[in-house]
């Protein structure tokens, strides 16, 4: 079920054999038969040829795992999404407001949000991830306790907020006020960590599509996070995955929500600019 389509708005419209190549991506599959997901796209210019294509992790999975993501009923992540939808409508904290009291219907107010995070917050003067923004709402606007950065509540809320952006191209800004943080993330990406002396690039740029033991290495794209991981039978956040990767290099890992991982998230997200938001996806 592959077809060539225009990258942005009219992704559902098949343009077979038009020869238009410039702004194209490849739709690898559709969710529920009506949300086309671009799984291959020419790599962003800032990658400077390090990758020819940005490729979603979906492409590296077995057909049975892929199939679980193609229908929301078959995707176990939707259990967490449903629970988060209840939380969205529940008043929390001393202010007595719910998410919905300010943001209304998540499926309308959050359209496109997941596609542009992490992003610069002018008022705070910092790069914010979606999780930071959620915690900021909880503590500053709702008078509630912050959630654990990579805990189940946060993962479920990130998944819920991602839903109305599915199929939209990841479009993370890398210039202007975020440039220095982006550079920091890029440097981390190419820094070898741990006793195994592995950088992110060692596996995900130089060896994607190869096997590491029995794992089929992907490009480590994060357009699909949080993901429902079959191994954990639960949602895993981007920083949760980062922690696992750093630990696998036999290094002391950075903390979830640390400035280091925020910078890395910004950089890794930008490597997938143009891929569709897929979250919450299914991965082994």
């Amino acid at each position, binding site marked *: 079920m592959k077809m060539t389509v225009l990258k942005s708005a009219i992704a559902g419209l098949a343009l077979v054999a038009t020869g238009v190549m410039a702004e194209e991506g490849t739709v690898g599959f559709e969710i529920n038969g009506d949300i086309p997901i671009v799984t291959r796209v020419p790599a962003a210019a800032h990658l400077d040829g390090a990758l020819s294509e940005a490729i979603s992790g979906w492409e590296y999975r077995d057909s*049975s*795992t892929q199939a679980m993501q193609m229908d929301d009923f078959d995707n176990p992540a939707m259990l967490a999404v449903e629970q988060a939808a209840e939380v969205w409508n529940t008043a929390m904290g001393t202010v007595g407001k719910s998410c919905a009291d300010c943001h209304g219907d998540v499926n309308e107010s959050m359209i496109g949000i997941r596609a542009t995070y992490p992003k610069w917050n002018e008022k705070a003067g910092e790069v914010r991830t979606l999780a930071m923004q959620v915690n900021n709402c909880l503590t500053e606007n709702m008078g509630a306790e912050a959630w654990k950065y990579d805990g189940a509540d946060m993962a479920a809320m990130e998944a819920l907020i991602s839903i109305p952006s599915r199929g939209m191209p990841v479009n993370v800004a890398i210039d202007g006020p975020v440039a220095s943080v982006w550079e920091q993330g890029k440097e981390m990406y190419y820094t070898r960590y741990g006793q195994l002396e592995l950088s992110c690039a060692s596996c995900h740029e130089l060896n994607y599509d190869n096997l590491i*033991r*029995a*794992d089929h290495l992907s490009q480590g794209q994060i357009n699909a996070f949080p993901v429902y991981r*079959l191994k954990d*039978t639960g949602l895993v956040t981007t920083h949760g995955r980062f922690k696992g*990767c750093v630990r*696998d290099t036999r290094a002391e890992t950075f903390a979830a929500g640390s400035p280091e991982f925020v910078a890395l998230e910004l950089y890794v997200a930008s490597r997938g600019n143009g891929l569709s938001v897929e979250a919450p996806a299914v991965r*082994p």
Partner: protein
Amino acid sequence: MNLTRRETVLLAAGASVAVMVPFRAFADAAENIAAFTGGAAVGEGGITLTAPEIAENGNTVPVDVDAPGAVEIMVLAVGNPNPAVGTFKFGPLAAAQMASTRIRLSKTQNVMAIAKMADGSFVQATKEVKVTIGGCGG
């Protein structure tokens, strides 16, 4: 990993125990089969068992069973510590004697489905599923 001599001996002892395990598991599966069939002969054909050849993770392996005319279908994971997986009994309103679920496999092994047909006979199908153990935790 540096092993002392004692640890090496212990590992060897553990390995010989591990070799015994499949026989025990097979015996358990045989008990499950006997309980289901009452010792009746089990034929082939008329039942389809669909499972991936390679499961990316043994925690969630999709399995389909289909046995037109069956009254019930038992599914076994022969190599699991407890081979029983589930038994599907079809009621009068079942449109087809088929079902899909997701199961846990502790390692590479045979998955088996045995159907009890309306006439009291039994048929079976077996499929090997290789379970990969990924290198990447997290």
